[in-house]
């Protein structure tokens, strides 16, 4: 059984806050949820399934279901880091296709800017006994990937910088973006090193915020007044160290991408707009290669000279400004990736970045840590 055409994304809402010292995390989840339901033209009482990940405070989905007063018959709190919410759309479509529910709500929220929770060692994680002494944080994990990619393929810091430059071109039009200034390649490569070879401007922003999505059955979708965004295909794939046969030059997108493209029945050249997870510039580069938008190892050349800028290049990406400039709520960017893809398919992106005739879009996420173990989730959608 396929999920192709079995579900629609009818509600999408990005919380406008980027700094929320006066709100609780559950409150931002709920405000985002109500925003997405309103966008769809639905109410809380229409929701019969709830999806969340590790950012949802409490016990799996139970605490937020109770907080929001939901009455649901299907829940899923699969946590694959920042890619969770892309995977949740696929899991919601599966549940809808199986007849388990018809209106699925997905939420994300967090306050890493104003109420950061220190990244703690999870002592019972199987790797902790061997890895916890070494100070793995996010930036040095991705830094190791960038270092190896440069070694094997000749990728340069200037090429990586083009990814940030493109995101900044888009962010200037987003009134809610955390960073709206347009930057140059020189500014990126001259910003301080965080963990080499990654500079400060190779890293995503840290913001408070949240977002929500509503995925429905075809019957519900067709009863609503919003443009129809149909799920075409999805793939998911965790990748780790392979027992020591570790290869940091590619991501799980190498596996999740082909699954999604096969289910959707399309190829990379059919994608008019792509939301690509951008925790760091190197994340984007590797995913673009692994999804097949260019040959492996040629990502540096592909992203250069504005090729990711809407209206300029061949692959308009992250037209909201992405995690690099706009928003990375809860240090998890997956939901904003789907939200901007929905805006593009509806024709509701900012006019300066709206892709013409945007009929097919892709959202891809990397969750966890690219240099140790991560989740990959790919979602392909179309304007019906």
């Amino acid at each position, binding site marked *: 059984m396929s999920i192709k055409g079995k579900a629609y994304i009818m509600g999408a809402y990005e919380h406008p806050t980027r700094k929320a010292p006066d709100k609780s995390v559950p409150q931002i989840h709920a405000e985002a949820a109500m925003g997405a339901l309103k966008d769809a033209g639905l109410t809380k009482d229409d929701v019969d399934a709830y999806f969340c990940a590790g950012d949802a405070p409490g016990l799996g989905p139970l605490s937020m279901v109770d907080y929001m007063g939901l009455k649901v018959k299907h829940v899923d709190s699969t946590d694959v880091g920042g890619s969770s919410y892309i995977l949740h759309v696929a899991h919601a479509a599966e549940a809808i296709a199986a007849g388990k529910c018809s209106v699925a709500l997905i939420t994300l929220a967090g306050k890493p800017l104003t109420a950061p929770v220190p990244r703690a060692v999870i002592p019972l994680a199987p790797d902790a006994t*061997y890895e916890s002494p070494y100070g793995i944080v996010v930036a040095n994990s991705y830094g190791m990937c*960038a270092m190896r990619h440069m070694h094997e393929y000749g990728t340069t810091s200037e090429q990586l910088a083009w990814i940030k430059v493109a995101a900044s071109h888009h962010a200037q039009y987003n009134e809610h973006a955390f960073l709206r200034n347009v930057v140059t390649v020189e500014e990126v490569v001259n910003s301080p090193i*965080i963990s080499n070879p990654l500079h400060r401007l190779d890293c995503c922003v840290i913001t408070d915020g949240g977002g929500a999505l509503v995925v429905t059955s075809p019957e519900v979708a067709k009863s609503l007044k919003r443009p129809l965004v149909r799920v075409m295909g999805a793939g998911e794939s965790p990748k780790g160290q392979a027992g020591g046969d570790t290869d*940091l030059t590619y991501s799980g997108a190498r596996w999740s991408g082909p699954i999604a493209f096969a289910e959707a029945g399309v190829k990379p050249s059919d994608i008019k707009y792509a939301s690509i997870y951008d925790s760091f510039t190197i994340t984007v580069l590797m995913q673009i290669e692994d999804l097949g938008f260019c040959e492996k190892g040629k990502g540096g050349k592909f992203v250069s000279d504005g090729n990711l800028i809407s209206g300029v290049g061949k692959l308009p990406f992250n037209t909201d400004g992405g995690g690099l400039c706009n928003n990375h709520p809860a240090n998890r960017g997956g939901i904003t990736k789907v939200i901007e893809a929905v805006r593009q398919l509806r024709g509701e992106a900012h006019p300066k970045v709206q892709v013409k005739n945007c009929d097919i879009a892709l959202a891809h996420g990397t969750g966890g840590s690219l240099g140790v173990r991560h989740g990959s989730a790919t979602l392909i959608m179309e304007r019906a």
Partner: protein
Amino acid sequence: MAERQFPAAVINPESQPYWDAAAKGKLLIKFCNGCKKHFFYPRSICPLCASSDTEWKEASGKGEIYTHSTMRRVPEPYALAYVTLAEGPKMLTNIVDCDFDKLAIGQKVHVVFKPAKEGPPIPAFAPD
């Protein structure tokens, strides 16, 4: 510049032999008698072939840097790395006793044991 202090190792029954050996200055890895391969990190069931016939082996302690990244945005910078061990598997570790600016992929390194805040010392690698 001060060296980063290693935190205490988190030890569980499955990894106890690894840390007992570290206390004696030995680096252990696992060998699978099912598929005849070394693997890392160590665990009781082989992640390559699922055989439970695995045994601890002392590694030569020699290897080369597969990749590295030095965290600079902290008071005491440190180099995270994967080292390809002479036995084959890659091991996540730190490179120590070195000039971080001169680290290079392919550089030959050897195991050294560094004191932790408490408990057994931590295996790390230094350039030959």
